[in-house]
């Protein structure tokens, strides 16, 4: 007689905790054929605002950590992902309706991409910064710093784990904290990733994950005055121009949607997109 399995409750991830949506709402996650897989939490405006509060609270710690430290913390996530490989492959194969081989390839690529980004944590400032030869007796240096709280619309199509990693990893590398709206249709790998995060060394609030309707939640984040930047990587199907207009009110940095097979391809520009260059001058005087 086969054992009766214990299905998982998929919840939100805010401030290092796993709340249900305060709205009490859920929606059905199904297989390609429409069979029920799980209920995912359907995040509300309030959940989004709570997530921003958590992200803001976590910012000084995460952005103040050394690049070496952030790099190790991020690398540790890749280690844990590797250990949970089978779980991600199962979820992806079930919900995205792809072959096991394709699911395996996606998970492997996602883990490798995470490692690629983790390695940038203690290097990007060296590549993107500069020492400036000003015409005068001044020490002058420019360094990139994290922009702050970044709201992210993760890619919505198949390839949900790879898309999620492509969207989130570069913002974290620089020291930003993020509020991510996961793929509406394929949210399971994002939620499972949050369980990885909770057992990793990433402080609570650095990554906050919302499942639900991006069309409903994204406008609240785009207009939120305590959000510094908006990554519309996966917002191609939304009214993203409206989101960009809402973001202009507080002059958020906005990264536009990307489509096609190259969407979210790993590159340094995805890291520097959410950084600010700080230039510091200091007088050189005689002793």
């Amino acid at each position, binding site marked *: 007689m086969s054992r009766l399995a214990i299905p998982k409750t998929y919840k939100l991830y805010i401030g290092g905790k796993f709340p249900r949506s305060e709205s009490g709402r859920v929606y059905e996650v199904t297989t390609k054929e429409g069979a029920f897989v799980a209920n995912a939490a359907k995040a509300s405006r309030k959940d989004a605002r709570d997530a921003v509060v958590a992200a803001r609270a976590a910012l000084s710690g995460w952005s103040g950590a050394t690049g070496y430290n952030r790099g190790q913390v991020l690398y540790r996530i890749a280690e844990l992902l590797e250990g949970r490989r089978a779980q991600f492959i199962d979820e992806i194969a079930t919900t995205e309706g792809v072959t096991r081989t394709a699911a395996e390839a996606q998970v492997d690529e996602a883990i490798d991409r995470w490692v690629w980004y983790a390695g940038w944590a203690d290097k990007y400032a060296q*590549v*993107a910064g*500069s020492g*400036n*030869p*000003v*015409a*005068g007796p*001044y020490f*002058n240096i*420019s360094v990139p710093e994290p*922009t702050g709280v970044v709201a992210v619309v993760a890619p919505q199509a198949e390839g949900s784990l790879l898309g999620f990693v492509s969207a989130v990893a570069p913002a974290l590398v620089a020291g930003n904290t993020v509020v991510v709206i996961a793929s509406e249709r394929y949210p399971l790998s994002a939620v499972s990733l949050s369980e990885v995060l909770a057992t990793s060394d990433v402080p609570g609030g650095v990554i906050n994950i919302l499942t639900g309707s991006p069309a409903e939640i994204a406008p609240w984040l785009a207009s939120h005055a305590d959000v*510094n930047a908006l990554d519309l990587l996966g917002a*191609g199907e939304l*009214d*993203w*121009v*409206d989101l*960009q*207009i809402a*973001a*202009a*009110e*507080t*002059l958020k*940095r*906005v990264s*536009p*949607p*990307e*489509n*096609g097979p*190259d*969407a979210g*391809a790993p590159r340094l*520009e995805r890291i520097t997109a959410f950084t*600010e*260059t*700080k*230039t*510091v*001058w*200091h*007088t050189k*005087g005689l002793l």
Partner: protein
Amino acid sequence: MSFLDYAPAPESTSILNLRSEYGLFIDGDFVDGHGTPFDTISPATEKTIARIATADAHDVDLAVAAARRAYDRTWSRLSGADRGKYLFRIARLVQERSRELAVAESLDNGKPIKETRDVDVPLVAAWFFYYAGWADKLDHAGLGANPRSLGVAAQVIPWNFPLLMLAWKIAPALAAGNTVVLKSAESTPLTALLFAEILQQAELPDGVVNILSGAGDTGATLVNHADVDKVAFTGSTSVGRAIARSVAGTQKKLTLELGGKGANIVFDDAPIDQAIEGIISGIYFNQGQVCCAGSRLLVQENVHDEVVDRLKARLSTLRVGDPLDKNTDVGAINSAAQLKRITELSDIGEQEGAERWSPECNLPEKGFWFAPTIFTNVSTSHRIARDEIFGPVLSVLTFRTPAEAITKANNTPYGLSAGIWSDKGSRVLAVADRLRAGVIWANTFNRFDPSSPFGGYKESGFGREGGRHGLAAYLAPAARQAPGAVPVYESVIDAPAAPAGPEPLPPAEPAIPSLAEAPAIDATATSSSASATDATTAAEGNVR
């Protein structure tokens, strides 16, 4: 007779060879504008300097078309080395005509000749010289090999550093291979037109740089023009917001350099003599009409009285008056509208309970003048501690611990500049790390250099001007190849005229407001924290 009484030493205006009327500079020639011409006046005397053509929508079309033609046929086909040679020529011509440019700038803007002669114009030449050398070295700009120019750049500049802001915009744009349509500020069109003459002397190919005069609606028409690939704006945060909205959904790359409310932090171990000079130059340089001005002085409580007393003593020695006089330290306010704003905000400062002080000074009867002013007993909630005044008005606040100083300094939606005065290196570096501002001056203030990136955090805008970073604002990485595909672009020269972005965006519903609804764009660098003013300014067609 005090040492402040002195014989006038005005710089002669005979070096100027001004015309009574100026047209628009389009496609290499001065042409008549189709808008209603306006007079540009000297803010020190209110006397008319010249009559200036106004560009309307038709003129903007002509200028953008000329820039597009020049981009397709000439400029994008030129080698980097040759583009650089033109820029070197321009730098040298600016140096040759520097005295003339300085006099014209002081006349039109109202700032002291000491500043235009020693700061503005030398920096203009330096900016062109610096970016000239970049033109054939773009592979090292940080975007990988063979970066692409963007196309036609629409640039709108403010009145506070008319010629310098022109240089900040045009030099990197041309070095990177773009062509330019620049709109000068309504109250300071003169030096941009003299610069157009320099372009003719440099034999810059027709249409590579086009210069338009006009008010906010001309600027709005320009940045909303469909055939523009890049928008660069320096001015108020409210207009910056309007521009960010209007370019949403387009592929126009955007750089915004907006308002500020810079904190100048003085610790009790600061080198006090230098700090006093730094505070003075931080807020009274250019009559305080500087986006990165150190308009909030944060003084450690135990040295507050000493610092304020010495500031007052120093302020009493500043000479306010004729901008063309070589002894003048503080010149005229740029316009009647700006004077009104400074006056209003200062009055509010008094009403809210801050203590106002100005040295005695005899202000000229004609023209726009405002005595240098210090407010003490200012609290963080006062308007004069929150709003950008954009005038010679310093608000003094106090703090006890470094942590409090940092919190107060960052307690603003702006994030352009900050200053730190302390003899303790470790403290300077620790505080610099935690200030959310794009430019931090430690034991100095208001220094600028073409190699040094400049620009804001938060609502002070985005993108950088100056240095390698400023160049990147006018470039895009080489088009990425699809796997296994033949490279789309063999070289920049073969690239199609309207460059596709590296990531083709989906056909967007462009949310470009129609011209009638378009926000008025004029590069006044004053700003209002109330975004509600946007609607009014749009209706009035001018943000002043």
